């Protein structure tokens, strides 16, 4: 009798097994995650996205596969966990340039301090007295949209001489670019310089430039594009193939834009209005649009990154004395605020904001604003507590 019931019991378990979703963790909502492709990719594009995804998120370099000998990280994902904002544990230091122009410390390991080394090698140390800054990794989602904004749109948003008198200027970064990148549609150049837009000082031209540089400077991987070894300075055979780099670039271009949450919440809506009223939106531009892109899913689209991709004087507190390209040390590119509410999920459960992660809350980040944003910050300070909370809640909903 008893045996029968046991047998019966186990038989009853069988259907359970074949409906295996039982007791399985539910898929998080699309808006809770940063990773995932933009909508409407073709199947061929989706395949390329996945190839890039694997290279970005799964390929960890070791001594055998070319890591280093000096480096700052072993894979893209080690600093860009979940495609979100980086943790201060994996921040890195750049050094050696105080004024617009050229880095004087290129011979001494500049600009990037490769602070790690494979066994048997010495990592770089900061030359005494060299200007430097720490950088944490930015969110990398939605970059394809930012990449496809036309140069002319950036120029139109800029106001280098503050002709409109609102105290906020904003300028494009005219910089040199490597030969291996190709023009974006309708690119504009001036005296051999181009408008560069990636990186916190906006010194990188496009995502190929950024990716080839990251493999080389961050991981110590030489490629067709960046063949020089960071340790010896010698030209080396490629440690990664061109196809993989191009797949990663494709992946970065087609990562979806973060999806905002709670947009119908009355506090969020009130916060959004206040965000415009107190001039935050003058730099953190809510809406931009793309020009033509060969990837149809990002061609001629409107999107909401909360950035103008321009350089702004952010005042003495955020001036670390170090700079890149033709930016000043007090200038920073407006970072997009999209996805910021999900930053905690890639920063170990708490916020580390601003270029070096020095601010532990959104409010603290606002209070560090100075320079062109001084007025805006003071307007924020003047808000009632309820209004401040609404602004913060709105930013968290992005």
């Amino acid at each position: 009798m008893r045996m029968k019931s046991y047998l019966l019991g186990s038989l009853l378990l069988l259907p359970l097994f074949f409906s295996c979703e039982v007791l399985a963790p539910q898929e998080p909502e699309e808006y809770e995650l940063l990773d995932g492709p933009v909508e409407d990719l073709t199947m061929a594009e989706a395949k390329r996205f996945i190839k890039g995804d694997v290279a970005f998120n799964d390929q960890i370099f070791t001594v055998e596969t070319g890591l280093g000998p000096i480096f700052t990280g072993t894979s893209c994902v080690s600093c860009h966990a979940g495609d979100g904002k980086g943790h201060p544990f994996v921040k890195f230091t750049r050094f050696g340039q105080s004024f617009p122009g050229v880095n004087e410390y290129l011979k001494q390991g500049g600009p990037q301090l490769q602070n790690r080394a494979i066994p048997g090698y010495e990592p770089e140390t900061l030359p005494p007295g060299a200007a430097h800054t720490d950088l944490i990794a930015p969110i990398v989602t939605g970059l394809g949209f930012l990449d496809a904004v036309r140069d002319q749109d950036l120029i139109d948003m800029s106001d280098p001489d503050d002709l409109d008198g609102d105290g906020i200027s904003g300028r494009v970064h005219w910089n040199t670019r490597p030969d291996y990148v190709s023009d974006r549609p309708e690119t504009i150049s001036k005296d051999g310089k181009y408008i560069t837009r990636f990186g916190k000082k906006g010194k990188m031209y496009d995502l190929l430039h950024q990716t080839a540089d990251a493999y080389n400077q961050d991981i110590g991987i030489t490629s067709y594009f960046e063949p020089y070894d960071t340790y010896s300075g010698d030209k080396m055979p490629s440690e990664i193939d061109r196809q993989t780099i191009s797949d990663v670039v494709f992946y970065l271009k087609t990562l979806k834009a973060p999806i905002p949450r709670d947009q119908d919440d009355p506090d969020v809506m009130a916060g959004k209005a206040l965000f415009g009223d107190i001039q935050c939106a003058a730099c953190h531009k809510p809406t931009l649009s793309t020009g033509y892109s060969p990837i149809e899913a990002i061609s001629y689209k409107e999107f909401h990154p909360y950035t103008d991709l321009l350089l702004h004087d952010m005042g003495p507190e955020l001036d670390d004395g170090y700079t890149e390209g033709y930016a000043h040390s007090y200038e920073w590119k407006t970072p997009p605020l999209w996805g910021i509410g999900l930053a905690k999920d890639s920063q170990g459960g708490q916020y580390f904001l601003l270029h070096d992660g020095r601010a532990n809350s959104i409010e603290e980040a606002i209070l560090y604003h100075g320079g062109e944003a001084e007025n805006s910050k003071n307007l924020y300070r003047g808000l009632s507590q309820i209004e401040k909370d609404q602004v913060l809640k709105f930013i968290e909903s992005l």
Partner: protein
Amino acid sequence: MKISTLNFLKTNLIIIALFCFGLVNAQEEDPEKSKEKNEQELNMDAVFSRPTLSFDKVPVTVGGYLEANTMHRTEEGITDGLSFQARRLTIFMAASISERIKFLTEIEFEDGGKEVAIEFAALDVAFHPLFNFRGGIVMNPIGAFNENHDGPKWEFVERPDVAVNMLAATLSNAGFGMYGKTYSGNWIFGYEAYLTNGFSSRIISNEEDKTYLPAHKDGDNLFEDNFSGKAMFSGKLAIKNRKIGEIGISYMGGTYNKFEDDGEEVEDQAKVDVFAIDWNTTIKATGTYIVGEAAWIWAETPDTYTQQYGNKQRGVFMDIVQPVYKNKIFEWEDATFNVAARFDYVDWNVGRFKETNTKIGDQILAVTPGISFRPTPKTVFRINYRYEWKTDILNNPAERAATWYMGFSSYF
């Protein structure tokens, strides 16, 4: 651990030859006798205490086990569907060369024969119960699982995380040493001590991007070269009371890097120390069987490293197996139904980040309830459900995964 196809062919040939010569003769054991034997055994005796092996009458015996299962895993709501796995086929071959000299080898075929590993191949010479020599490819006596890893002995399809993903089970190395046992009333005391080849720098430079002992097994010429040039010591002390249970403490460690090359010092010498405690007991009143191990690793990493590669690791697993029905079922005299549960925990990087003074993640926690049916002690059918939480090094919200397993494992 991988051996070449040529060697693989050779092994196959030997096995076939043995079959042809009709030397093969698996012996059924008398259950009463085996029960008594069981009580005198320690975890470390697992190597020779395998149901199909007998050293009594014939010079050579062959045995082994097969494990197969289906698996369905869902990670954060996303599943790759159902898969069927024939995880491993392991073959033992044992020979009594003369009285007091025996040979045993254990060869594992994984992934349909693409990976062939010699898990054990040693000559044992008995001088005295307290004093036996063992040399060849030996299993390092660390924790409960490494030396006692046969699938049919366990109620779970997966091997314990701490054993496999922290301690590198099944870990065997070329070397030699001694072991022995002594009895006094209800007490049994045993020891093992070996010198073997040690770990390599792969444990601190690998695709897991963390201090990871199992990465050592991807190295080349593991049974010929000792990466560091220094012997690794591994040893175990075990004590058992027939009425209470067994407890073992074990250690292995030594230099793992090639700090000298051609007589020149090229790196600072770096060491790894592993310490484990294991236990097992059967509660007489209820028949509940409990087995587990806890382990700690201390690894010296280069000064030039960040905390990506941890200096300290710890982990534990514990199985609780409750027979709920033991009787004749169909023609099986001694069939058993069990319910069982396993707890797994590993922290590959114990400590706090210097930069933020927040906790370093890199952990896994899992619970696995299951049921098993054993028509005979040598064969187990099992259904497991494993739920795990895994955090990355930054301690971001855990990734959850649930896996259903249904499978069997049997000696032959």
